[in-house]
C-alpha cells in the first residue's frame, strides 16, 4: 500500500549553525580529515585565548604523514568524552604528546598519536585570518606554557611584543 510523501518541498537545505554532540562532531572531523581534506569550523570556549577566541573559525589540516611538532596547535579527540578539542603540543614523548590549552594552568595529559586528527593552519576572526601563534613564535609560547604561565595574564606584554615579532618574522 502506498503512503504519503514524508516531507514534500525543499529537500536539500543548509544546516545552519547547530551544536553537534561531542562524539558526533569528532567523528565528522575525522571523516573529513581521513579523506585528505581540511576541516573548517567555529571554535567555542576560552582555553586557547588569546590566540584562538570563542567564535573564531579554525581550519584544521590533515597531518599527511608528518607528526605534530612542538608548538603545533592540534585537533585531538579526548579519551573520556570523545570530544574534539584544539590545544597546543608542549612536549613530545615518543609517540605520545603532552597537550595543553594556552589559557590553562595544567596540561590535558598525554595523548597518543592516533588521537590527533590534524593541525591548525588558519584562524579567522571577522572573516579575516589572524595572528594565531602557529608560526615561529610557537617555541616561545611552549616555553611559557611549560612553566605554567597562563598567556592571558601576559596580554598587556603581548600587545607590545607582537608587533616586534611580526617584523622579525617578516
Amino acid at each position: 500500500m502506498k503512503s504519503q510523501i514524508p516531507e514534500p518541498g525543499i529537500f536539500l537545505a543548509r544546516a545552519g549553525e547547530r551544536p553537534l554532540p561531542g562524539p558526533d562532531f569528532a567523528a565528522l572531523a575525522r571523516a573529513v580529515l581521513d579523506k585528505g581534506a581540511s576541516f573548517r569550523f567555529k571554535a567555542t570556549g576560552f582555553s586557547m585565548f588569546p590566540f584562538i577566541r570563542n567564535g573564531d573559525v579554525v581550519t584544521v589540516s590533515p597531518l599527511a604523514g608528518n607528526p605534530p611538532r612542538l608548538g603545533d596547535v592540534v585537533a585531538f579527540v579526548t579519551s573520556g568524552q570523545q570530544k574534539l578539542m584544539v590545544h597546543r603540543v608542549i612536549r613530545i614523548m615518543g609517540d605520545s604528546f603532552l597537550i595543553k590549552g594556552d589559557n590553562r594552568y595544567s596540561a590535558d595529559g598525554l595523548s597518543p598519536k592516533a588521537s590527533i586528527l590534524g593541525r591548525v593552519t588558519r584562524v579567522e576572526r571577522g572573516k579575516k585570518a589572524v595572528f594565531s601563534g602557529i608560526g615561529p613564535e610557537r617555541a616561545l609560547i611552549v616555553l611559557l606554557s611549560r612553566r605554567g604561565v597562563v598567556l592571558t595574564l601576559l596580554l598587556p606584554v603581548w600587545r607590545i611584543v607582537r608587533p616586534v615579532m611580526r617584523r622579525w618574522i617578516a
Partner: protein
Amino acid sequence: MEAKIRLDAIYGPSEDVVSREIEGELLIVPLAAGVGDIEDELFTLNKTGRIIWELLGGQKNLKNVVAELFARFEAPVGEIEEDVIGLVEELLKRGMLVEISNT
C-alpha cells in the same frame, strides 16, 4: 555549462563528500577545494530528500529511482520525476553527486 540530467544515467555520491547521520538527521559536507567547511557549507536533507539520496546509491538509473518512489508513495509520477531531477541537479551543482554511467 550545466550537464543535462538523463533518466537513463546512474548517479551516485561523489568521493568528495562526507555524510553522517547525527541525531536522526543526515548531514552532508561537500569537500570543495579540499576543505570540509561545516561553518558555511553544511547541508541537511529532509525525509524525502534522504530517501532519494539513499536510492541514488550508484546502482539504479534515475528512471528506476522514479519507478521505485512511485511504487512507494501516492504522488503522480510526473511530480516525482520532477522532484528527483530537481534534487539531482542541486546535488550535482554542489559537487555532492556524480554521474557514474548511463545505461
